[in-house]
C-alpha cells in the first residue's frame, strides 16, 4: 500500500537532501565491508504452501448493494472513469456492494477540466456533478493561471496517458 507520510519522509528526505546538493561522486566508492563474500544473498526460495497470499475476499456477510446516481447534463457528454475503466456517460447509476471501498472517480467532458470526486458505498446516494470550464475554474481556491488546456472526451490515447 502507499507508504504513510511519516514513513515515506524517513526514506525520501535523506535522498532529497542529497540530490539537492547536486553532487555525485565521480568514482564508485568501494564498500569497506561489502566484499564478494558479504554480498547480499538472494531472497528465500518460493514457499511450498499454496495458500500463503491473502485471501481475495474478506468473508463479510452480504449486506446488499447501494445505488449511486451521478447526475450531469447529458449534453455535456461527461464520461465517468474509474481508473482506466470508463463507466459510461453521466447521468448514470453505479451499483456497489454496501460497505465496500469508496471509489475515486474522474469525470471528463469536452471543454471542461477533469473533475475528481469520490463516491461512498455506505448508502444510496445521488451526486450532482458540477463541471468547470477553464474560465469558471478561475474562481476556485488554488487556481493559478498557468492551467493546462481543458480535456476532450476520453479516447484510448487519453486513457493510455494515465498508465504510468
Amino acid at each position, binding site marked *: *500500500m502507499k507508504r*504513510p507520510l*511519516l*514513513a515515506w*519522509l*524517513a*526514506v525520501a528526505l*535523506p*535522498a532529497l537532501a*542529497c*540530490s539537492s546538493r547536486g*553532487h*555525485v561522486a565521480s568514482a*564508485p*566508492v*568501494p*564498500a*569497506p*565491508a*561489502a566484499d564478494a563474500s*558479504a554480498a*547480499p*544473498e*538472494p*531472497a*528465500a*526460495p518460493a514457499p511450498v*504452501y499454496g*495458500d*500463503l*497470499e*491473502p*485471501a481475495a475476499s*474478506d*468473508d*463479510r456477510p452480504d449486506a446488499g448493494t447501494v445505488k449511486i446516481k451521478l447526475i450531469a447534463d447529458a449534453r455535456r457528454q461527461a464520461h465517468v472513469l474509474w*481508473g*482506466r*475503466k470508463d463507466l459510461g456517460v453521466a447521468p448514470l447509476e453505479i451499483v456497489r456492494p454496501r*460497505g465496500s*471501498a*469508496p471509489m*475515486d472517480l*474522474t469525470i471528463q467532458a469536452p471543454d471542461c477540466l*477533469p*473533475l*475528481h*470526486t*469520490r463516491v*461512498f458505498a*455506505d448508502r444510496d446516494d445521488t451526486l450532482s456533478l*458540477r*463541471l468547470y470550464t477553464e474560465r469558471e*475554474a478561475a474562481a*476556485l*481556491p*488554488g487556481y493559478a493561471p498557468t*492551467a493546462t*488546456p481543458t480535456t476532450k472526451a476520453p479516447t484510448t490515447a487519453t486513457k493510455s496517458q*494515465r498508465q504510468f
Partner: protein
Amino acid sequence: MASLAASLACDRAKPSAPIEAPRAPALTAAAPPPRPRAHPIAAADALPALSDLPPERRAIQVVGSDENQVDADAARARGLTTVDLSDAWAPSVLEGASYRAVFTGLAADRSDGDGQPLAAGERNYLELYGIPPALSVLRRRFLIDAQGACARAFDADALLAVEQIRTWGASTEQKELAKHRARGQRLRAARPDAGTDDLQALAEGDGKMARDAKEHLRFEAERLAFAEAEKRLACEGLMDARKHKPGAYDTEMRTAMLDFQQKHAVMDQADIKRATLEALARQPLDNDFDALGRVLTERAMHAGGFIEDGSVGSSVSDPAYPTYLGADGARHRVPDLATASREATMNALGIATPEDAVAFFRRHPRDDFRWLRVAVRLPTPPEYYSRTMDLSVEIDRGDVWYDFPFDAAGVRQPQPRERFPQLTLFVKWRGERVPLVRWRTTVGGWRAELASDGQEYYRFKGSDVGPRVWRHIVTAPVWIPPATSPLGSMTKEKRVGGTYVRVTNYDETGPGFLSAYGMVAAIHEEMRKGPDGPRFFDNGIRTHGSFDYPSLRGRFSHGCHRLFNDLAMRIFSFVLDHRRWRATGNVAAGSRRVFWSRGEVFEMRLPTRGYYRELQPPIPVEVLEGRVKGTLTKPIAGYVPKPGVKYASRRLPTMTDTPEDRAGGGEAP
C-alpha cells in the same frame, strides 16, 4: 508541506528525528534458555472434542499433544473466554463503523487504506500505526521463515558489536567513506612512528592519533555490521539485492530497513540504532514469535475486556506499586493483565516456542483463519470490574514552559522537561482511586502556525486545564479542514482500477489510521451548569490515537492528547465494555470542498464526522496544569513573529481560536 499541515490540527505534526527507544521490549541474542513448554490446561477446563460443529460454534483447545475442536458455547459456559484468532477480528470500538472493513483488510494485507486491493506481493506493515497483522499474515511469515533462508545468512555478533550504524544521505555518505579511507591511510603511515602495528593498542593511547584510531575501529565495526544488515534484509526478502549498491545506504536499502522496522515494531524510522540492530541480530522466527505475542496480547485483552498492562508502576516487586483494597481486607497489586492474558492464550494454543508456533500454523491452512478462535482460561478480573465501572481520567501535563523559546537575538533557548505528559485511567473502588494504566501522551506547546496573512508565526497552543468530560467517543473520526487550510497536501497519486491517477487525499482527514484524529477519539467537553441542565462546550481538544508515534516520545501537539493508535483503541474499547453508552451513529458533516490543482478540479467530500457514541454518564477528565517552568506563569496570547523571518507587515494578524481552528472537526453533536 508537512510544516503547513502541522499548523492545522492537533496531531498533524512534522515527523521528528527518529527515536531510539523501542516500544516492544528489546530482546538480546543471548544463549538460548532451555526449551520452554506450554503448561497443560487444567483437567476441569478440557472439553470434549467434537468434529461436526458449524464454524460459528467452533473453538480449539490444546489438550496434551492434541488440538481439539470444541464447542465455543460450552467453553463459555465453563467460564472460558473464546479469543478470536480470525482475520475478521477488529477492536470492539470499531463495531458499527464502516471503517472496520478497511481495518480488517489492512490487517490481512488484502487492501489499502482506502479499501482498494493491494497489488500482488504488496504488504502492509502497520503495527506501529495501530493495525496489528492478522494471524494469516503471521502464518505466512512463520512458514516462509521456517524454511531457514536466514538461518546462517548473517553474523549476529557483528551486528551486536556496535551500538548503532551511522547513516547519511548519498553524497554525505560518500564523503564520510572517503574520510574513513583517508584516516586509514594516515594511521597506516603513522604506525611505524608509534611503534606498533596494532590499531587497538594505538587506540588505547592519548592524543589525536588515539582518537583517530578509535574512530577508525568504530567505523570499521559499523561497516562490518552494515554488511550483515544488508544480508539480513535480503534473506528476509525485504530487499532486492539487484537494486542495491553494496555498502551504500541507498533508497532500496533504506526502504527495506523501514519495512523491517515497521514489520517488527521497532521505532527507529530507518535509522540503524540499537533496537534495530538487536532485531536484525535475531533469527526471523524469533522476531515472528515476538510479533505473535504482541498480536495475541491485543486479541486477548480485547476478548477479556481488560486494560491493565503493568504501566502504572515500574516493577510489580516495587513496594510503591499501586494496589487496591480487596474484599478480604488485604491490599492487592493492580495486575498486569496484558502479560497474563498473552501467556494464557499462548498456553491454550500449546505455543511456548517459535517452533510450536510453526507447528500451529502448519496445522491450520489459511482458510481456518476465517473462523478460528481458541478457548482460554483468562485471568480472573480483579473485583473492581463490572459492567459499569466508576472510571475517571487524569492528564498530567508534566513540565510546561510558557516562555517564548527564543531570546531577543533569535537564539533558541533550552526548555528541558523532566516530567512528561501522562494519561492515567482510574477506577474508583472502595473509596480509593485505583490507577489502571498510565501512558505517555502529548500536550500542546509552542507551534508554528500559518496565519491568515499567509505567513507563519509562533503561537502557544496549549492544552486546556481543569475539569472536562469525555462524553462522546468517535470511531473513525474525520477532521474537517478549515477553509484556510493549504491545498498542497490535498491531492495524491494512487492506483485506482489498475492505473495511477491523481485523487483527492483523504489520508489526513480520515477516516483512517493516518487521520489527524487517528482511528478513535474522545472529545474533551467542558460541562457548565445551565438553566435547563448541564451544557457542554467543545474547545477542540481530544484524546485520540495518532499515527505519529515518535511524537509520543516528547514532542508537542496542538493541544490534543495523543495516544498510540492501538492503545487508543484499547482504552476506548475498554470504556465501552465497562460503561453505559448510546450509539449516535454516523454524524453527518456534509462537507464538500472544491479546489483547483494543476489544471484539474478536485472535490473533497466528507459525508460524516465519524461514528459517535455518547457515554451515559460522561467520564470525568481532570487535566492538571503540571509544573510550570521558566518565568511566565501564563501563556502568551496571540501570534509571535518567528525569529529571522521578514514579514510583509509589522501588524500581527488576528488569531482565530475556534474549536475547528484549534483542532478541526468543529463542535460535537
